[in-house]
C-alpha cells in the first residue's frame, strides 16, 4: 500500500466509526453456508453487525446462525425472499442502524466487496448501492434463461428510472437510513429486487451500481427454477407496468 492509499483507508475507517451498520442475511435452508458467510463478514468488517432472517428453513439454519452469536429472526413460515428481506429492514429500523447491507447467505456474495458498497453511501453519493455482476469489472456466469431475463429487466428498468441499470436482480445491496425506512414500510413481494429499484427511484431516492465479483453458489439452488421464471417474469412486468400509474409521495424525512 502506498502512503496515499493508506491515508484513504484510514479516512474511511474514521468515517465508519460513527456509522452503525448491519448485514441482513435472508436464509432459507442454508445450514451449510451461513456460518461461513458470517465468518467472512466478520473478517471483512468486524464492526458490521449481523442479522440472519431464517425464512422458514426446515434444516438447522437458525441453530447454526445462533451458534455464531449473530442475531436471528426466525419467521414462523416461509414468507419468500421479499418478506424475509423486509423483516431485516424492519429490524435495522427498530435498532436504529444507519446502513443495512443485504448479503445472500448462500455465499454467492463476497463479503470483501461490502466496503465498496458502503463507499458511495458514506460519501453521500447514493441512497442505495447495488453490487452488479455486469458493469465493467464484474464477472458473471449463469444459465442463458436467467441472463435473458436479467437483461430484459435491465432494459425496462433503465427506461423507467432514466438511468443505466445493468443488474436489476442482484440481491447484494447497501441502503442508507432513508431507504431502510422506506423498505421497512413498503417492499415488494416474491421477487422483489427489480421492483424495489424502481420504487426507490420513484420516491426520489438515488441508486447507483458498483461492479462486484460474484461467486458460484456454495450450496442450494436458485430460488428461481426454470418453470417459475416465466411466471415471475410476467408478474414482475405487470407490477412494473402498473407501478407507472401509481403516485409516490416525496421522500420520507426522519420523524
Amino acid at each position: 500500500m502506498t502512503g496515499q492509499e493508506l491515508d484513504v483507508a484510514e479516512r474511511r475507517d474514521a468515517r465508519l466509526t460513527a456509522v452503525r451498520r448491519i448485514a441482513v442475511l435472508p436464509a432459507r435452508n442454508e445450514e451449510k453456508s451461513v456460518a461461513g458467510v458470517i465468518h467472512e463478514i466478520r473478517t471483512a468488517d468486524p464492526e458490521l453487525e449481523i442479522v440472519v432472517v431464517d425464512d422458514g428453513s426446515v434444516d438447522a439454519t437458525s441453530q447454526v446462525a445462533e451458534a455464531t452469536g449473530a442475531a436471528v429472526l426466525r419467521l414462523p413460515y416461509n414468507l419468500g425472499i421479499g418478506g424475509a428481506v423486509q423483516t431485516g429492514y424492519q429490524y435495522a429500523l427498530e435498532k436504529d442502524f444507519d446502513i443495512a447491507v443485504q448479503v445472500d447467505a448462500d455465499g454467492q456474495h463476497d463479503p470483501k466487496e461490502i466496503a465498496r458498497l458502503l463507499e458511495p453511501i458514506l460519501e453521500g453519493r447514493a441512497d442505495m448501492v447495488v453490487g452488479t455482476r455486469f458493469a465493467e469489472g464484474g464477472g458473471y456466469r449463469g444459465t442463458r434463461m436467467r441472463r435473458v431475463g436479467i437483461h430484459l429487466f435491465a432494459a425496462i428498468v433503465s427506461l423507467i428510472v432514466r438511468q443505466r441499470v445493468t443488474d436489476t436482480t442482484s440481491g447484494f445491496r447497501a441502503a442508507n437510513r432513508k431507504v431502510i425506512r422506506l423498505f421497512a414500510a413498503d417492499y415488494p413481494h416474491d421477487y422483489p429486487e427489480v421492483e424495489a429499484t424502481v420504487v426507490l427511484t420513484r420516491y426520489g431516492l438515488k441508486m447507483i451500481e458498483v461492479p462486484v465479483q460474484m461467486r458460484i453458489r456454495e450450496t442450494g439452488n436458485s430460488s428461481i427454477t426454470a418453470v417459475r421464471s416465466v411466471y415471475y417474469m410476467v408478474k414482475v412486468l405487470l407490477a412494473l407496468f402498473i407501478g407507472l400509474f401509481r403516485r409516490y409521495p416525496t421522500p420520507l424525512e426522519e420523524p
Partner: protein
Amino acid sequence: MTPFRVSITAAIAAVILLLVIFELIRSRRLQERYALLWLLTGLVIFVLAVWRGLLSKFADAVGIAYPPSALFVLASFFVLVVLLHYSTVISKLSDQNTALAQRLALMENRLEERETKTD
C-alpha cells in the same frame, strides 16, 4: 355465427373487468399474484368476443351448436379455475394462521416464565 350484440356486450363486460382489476392493483387492494388469473380470464373473454371467427371454431371443435354459449361455458370454466385457486390460497393461509397462533402461544409461555423468574 355469434350475434353482433352478444359480441359487443361481452367485449364491454371484459373491458370493464380488466379496468376494475387494473385499478384494484394500482390502489394496492389486489396483489399482482392473485390478479394474474383474473387478467387471463378477462383477456380470453375479450379476445373471443372480438374475434368472432375464433369463437365459432372453438364452439365447433367442442360440439357446441350456438357459439355464444361457448363464450359463457369458457367464462364459467375460468371462474371455476379462479375459485379453485382461491381454495388453495385459503388452505395455505389457514395453515399459516395455525402456525402463527402456535408460535404466539409458545412465545407467551416463554415470556410468562421469564417474568415469574424476575419477580
